[in-house]
């Protein structure tokens, strides 16, 4: 008995050690740095001040007085909006794709799933550069646009749309897979029952398919949204870096701006947003379970 109990303790030690060294200590360091004093040329000195957090809302203006500055809130808001838009478009596109894969003959399924995951085998940077060529001058997008008789166009590149397209492309496999798993479990008899009861396609989608695949959609939404709000590549390369996102802002604070504590503070804000989202999702899921 005691052997079993001690094994329960010691057997879990490796897991706890991994948690400690890869999660708790690094996050602790980030929290510590966010309260530190910034070094003159980057770096930091340990202390306990809230300058970094104050700077999120207030900073010295051009006239040398402390004023409320919404610029970081704007950057955070823009990042969240981009993340939400990416997630929403991924959802709309992934649902039919996942549905078709789920309905396809058994021997096709593994191949189709493999094709969805295939891009992950290629470096993210290479894939984003591919979009530079597609959207660039005289690229595929421009030729297609002219072919369908679109008017004179300057460039698709370096626009918010280009950024969004790149992000949807990068993250959509993360949505397709969980949605596919959910749809696969869907009992076709329920769809037949719906039709038997004079439910048309729209009603069937709304009342049967969506509620039953919702867990998959929710999981996909989190898998897409979380990396989307931390992204750096697409805003820089496809969006032309004209508008800062949280990822690029954090990067600049550790680089050119030489303000590590502020960079750490923004990183924590980003993390707080993610944690709140995950908690809301977990609560929703557990409430649902309680209902069942």
């Amino acid at each position, binding site marked *: 008995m005691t052997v079993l109990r001690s094994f329960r303790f010691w057997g879990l030690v490796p897991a706890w050690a991994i948690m400690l060294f890869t999660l708790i200590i690094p996050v602790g360091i980030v929290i510590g740095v966010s309260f530190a004093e910034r070094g003159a040329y980057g770096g930091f000195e340990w202390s306990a001040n809230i300058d970094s957090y104050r700077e999120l809302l207030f*900073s010295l203006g*051009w006239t040398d007085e402390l004023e409320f500055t919404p610029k970081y809130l704007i950057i955070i808001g823009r990042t969240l909006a981009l993340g939400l838009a990416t997630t929403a478009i991924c959802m709309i596109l992934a649902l039919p794709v996942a549905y078709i894969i789920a309905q396809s003959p058994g021997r096709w399924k593994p191949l189709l799933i493999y094709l969805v995951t295939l891009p992950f085998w290629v470096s993210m940077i290479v894939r984003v550069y591919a979009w530079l060529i597609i959207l660039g001058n005289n690229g595929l997008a421009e030729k297609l646009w002219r072919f369908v008789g679109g008017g004179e166009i300057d460039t698709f590149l370096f626009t918010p749309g280009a950024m969004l397209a790149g992000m949807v492309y990068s993250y959509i496999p993360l949505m397709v897979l969980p949605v596919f798993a959910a749809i696969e479990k869907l009992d076709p008899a329920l769809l037949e029952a719906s039709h038997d009861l004079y439910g048309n396609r729209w009603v069937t989608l709304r009342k049967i398919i969506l509620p039953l695949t919702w867990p998959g959609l929710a999981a996909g939404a989190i898998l897409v949204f979380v990396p989307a709000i931390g992204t750096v590549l697409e805003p820089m390369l496809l969006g032309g870096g004209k508008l800062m996102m949280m990822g690029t802002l954090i990067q600049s604070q550790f680089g*050119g701006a030489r303000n590590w504590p502020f960079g750490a503070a923004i990183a924590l804000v980003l993390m707080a947003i993610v944690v709140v989202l995950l908690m809301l999702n977990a609560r929703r899921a557990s409430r649902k379970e309680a209902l069942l």
Partner: protein
Amino acid sequence: MKKTLLLGAVLSVAMITQAQAEGTLNIYAWSDSIAPELIEKFQAETGATVNVDGFNSNEDALTKLQAGSSGYDIVTPSQHFVKIMVDEGLLEDIGATDLAAYGQLDDRWKGQWWDPENKYSIPLAYGTAGYTVNRDLYKGPVDSWSVYFEPPAELQGKIASLSYPDEVVGAAQLYLGIPFCTEDKAEMKKVYDLLMAQKPYVAAYTSDNIENRIGSGEVAAHFWWDGNTLRTRNSGANIEYAMPKEGLVGWLDSFVVPKGAENVDLAKQFIDFMSTVENATIQYNYYAHSSPVEIDVSKAAYTPENAPELFPTVPVEFSKACSPAAQDLVTKVWTDLLQ
């Protein structure tokens, strides 16, 4: 017998790791800045293994050293970052005056403000930052920064800048006649206003992949460096490096050794190797930026006739190491610009 074999195996493994630890040189240099031919030659001559990683901004190099134990034996920052690294105690005193490379060095790079006693650094290349235009798309004059910062109609929406402020703000200061690293807010507000007025005409703020963007005509003007323009022009692009009368922003990259580097002696050996007349000429012909050490002019690929980029006809003002207050203003300009 078995035991001996095992012992032998253990010993040889131990010796191999030992040899690797002694013979590996890790270099962190500007992307594509060191001639691959010379890396191979150095490896053949010394038996050492050389790894080269690339960076695209001085800030990246500084951040990496500040984070501690970067694992690099040689880094090649620009002059103002050498100064910061020295002040921050991040560099090893390599006694540069005792190196053979020091003897090859042009006198005007000795005893400069970033390393007054020549303890820490040996320069490897220098040049300027300015802007480049694509001559297929833009035929007008390029004799002033006004073309870049207050673009004429043909250039509007076809301009690209860098993703960090370092040299861009310097160029704006040259144009406005404001000293580098000023702590005067009113003056920096003018820089901000200039960049803000330019922003609607800027297609992208990015430091990656510049040769494609300007060479292919994706944009018609790009903030860029002298030697990179030269190399891309020589590969067939119809581009021209501007000589703005207000001046160009100067830079000088140096070899330095981070504090705590594992192979200081090998690093010094490499610096000397790179600075011999023969190798410096190979490096010059590859990198296409001016050489601060003596080269064999008869074998040099670039002359004022075929490489006007490297021989500026306008004043060159070297970037300085800004005080924290001045740097904060530069950051404020940039964050407010891209907010």
